[in-house]
């Protein structure tokens, strides 16, 4: 694995940790509401799972017998870093529920997972590859359901539904990382 790929995974991992912290913060903002608290915690848990998946992939790539080389487009991490850090600061303040949902959509629209999923193509064992992919995929239908249930903003709901649709299957990946 090249240093470039290693640093890409490290950066993605850092950003997933920040996303986890944002969701944890939202959970604390809505502590008074059991359902919302559980929901934001489950979102945080998903992001934490992504960090674990990244660590797994990194280890597998390091141990791979092949000397793997990738062409990396790190644009996605650069853009994601700007947004996630801004959202992290915002989540430190008082966040109304609709804005919390919007933050969640902004986070989930980032294509960090896509980037890492591209890396999984290097995993030779199909079972391991499938496991890594499953750890990275996030079923966002809960987010959509919660928006439908708890807020009246149709446009927010439409954005959530569009995101769920776009995440069905993994064939829509953007190809940020390619085997060289």
């Amino acid at each position, binding site marked *: 694995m090249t240093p470039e790929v290693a640093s890409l995974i490290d950066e993605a991992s850092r950003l997933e940790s920040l996303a986890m912290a944002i969701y944890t913060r939202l959970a604390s903002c809505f502590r008074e509401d*059991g359902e919302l608290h*559980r929901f934001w915690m*489950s979102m945080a848990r998903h992001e934490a799972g992504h960090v*674990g998946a990244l660590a797994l992939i990194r280890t597998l790539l390091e141990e791979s017998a092949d000397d793997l080389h990738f062409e990396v487009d790190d644009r996605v991490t650069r853009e994601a870093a700007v947004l996630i850090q*801004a959202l992290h600061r915002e989540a430190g303040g008082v966040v109304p529920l609709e804005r919390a949902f919007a933050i969640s959509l902004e986070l989930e629209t980032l294509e960090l997972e896509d980037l890492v999923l591209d890396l999984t193509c290097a995993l030779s064992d199909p079972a391991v590859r499938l496991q890594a992919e499953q750890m990275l995929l996030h079923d966002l239908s809960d987010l959509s359901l919660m928006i439908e249930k708890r807020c009246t903003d149709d446009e927010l709901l439409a954005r959530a539904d569009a995101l769920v649709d776009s995440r069905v299957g993994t064939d829509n990946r953007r190809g940020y990382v390619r085997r060289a």
Partner: protein
Amino acid sequence: MQACSQIEEQVSEKDFQTWILELGARSFDGETLTLEAPFGLFRDRVKQSFLPIIENAVAVSAKKRCAVVVIVGQFVAAAGANRARGNHRPVAATKTPVAKPKPLREKTFETFVVGEGNRLAYLGARQLAEQSAGEGGNPLFLYGGVGLGKTHLLLAVGQALRASGKRVLYYQGEDFTRRMVEALQGGRMESFHREFRSADALLIDDVQFLAGKRRTQQELFHVFNLLHEAGKPIALASDRAPDELENLERGLQSRFAGGLLADLGPLDRELRLRILKGKLSEAGIHLDDHILERLAVQLQGSVREIEGLVSRLRAASSHQSMPLDDGVVETMITPYLTRRGPIDLDVVIDTVAWVHGLTRDELLSRDRSRRVAWPRHIAAYMCRKLTAASLPEIGHALGGRNHTSILRAVRSVAERQTSDAAFSGRLQQMEKMLGTSPGLRGRGAMAGVAAPPPGH
């Protein structure tokens, strides 16, 4: 309890809420305290950032060094919610986080932006803080929607009284209940009453959360009478008026309504603009006037929404790789220009006036010159098309005009729209500005309609 308080003093309020209150205590055998975190990364973060603080706090509380182990547990995901319902799990050092008066955050009268919708509330709060309210203004009951400044005024009252050496108790409704339940369960009701007897003023936010809690209401009734009879200032805030609070004891309802009832109305455009300017100035952010005007017209939410936008802009401007140029500003403000629900008549009127270079007062005036009358016709048409308001309602909103005048205005605009493609295009752009077509907000849409020649 002691350990928890110590931790709270050593970490920020945000960190305490986010990372410490989510922990649950699994066991304490006198030597080792085992805490549970909801998942692995959470545990790692707590260990990395807070473990020494927790260890020290436990050592002080237990009067000896104890090991603190953080593991991933099964129950803590729901623990926060349970705590909120008063079903507490012990946290850190096997103690429940004790409800205590909230610290008074830095909100003052000087930073409160006064407008038509909140003037009475502001004046009432100031009088109470200066203790010149007299019987009629005490208690002060503030009510209104989320983010309109109720808490700000309560805190400002608290700050002012505290500055004059008064002992002020500030509780949120839920915390008052928790405090009372804890005292009840721990057999410490005498101490609970003593705390209030020794207070010089009482502030309770989110009173609506007391609805349906009979015992809490009884205690509050007692505390209220105690302080009120002693002439001590009391201020309360709620999302609705006392008589609309369901499941509230009538005695308490009448006590709440016995002083000054002050409604905080929605922010009008003028107030939104002033608040926005103030917050941006505090954050050291400069936005062009045309963007400020546009935000003031289209931001329909609360002060919190404005604060959210400003913190977003501040975050962006503090990031080296993202200078606050027009493009960044556009990206940041777009989510805030999203329409939510039906469009308000005032927003339509403000927007049409602004687009035509008129003030709202000019548009609503009796001026019959074409410069003003034609935009007024357009406003009537837009109101009819984009809102659910009836013709008489539109007439009323447009300066008290008869519904037949509105109907004529609507027809004349509709007629011209069918025969004048350029005019039709401008109307469409105005609709886009008002957020009725997805994906069409933004400066581009604005540029096409801004400041057309008068009379169009």
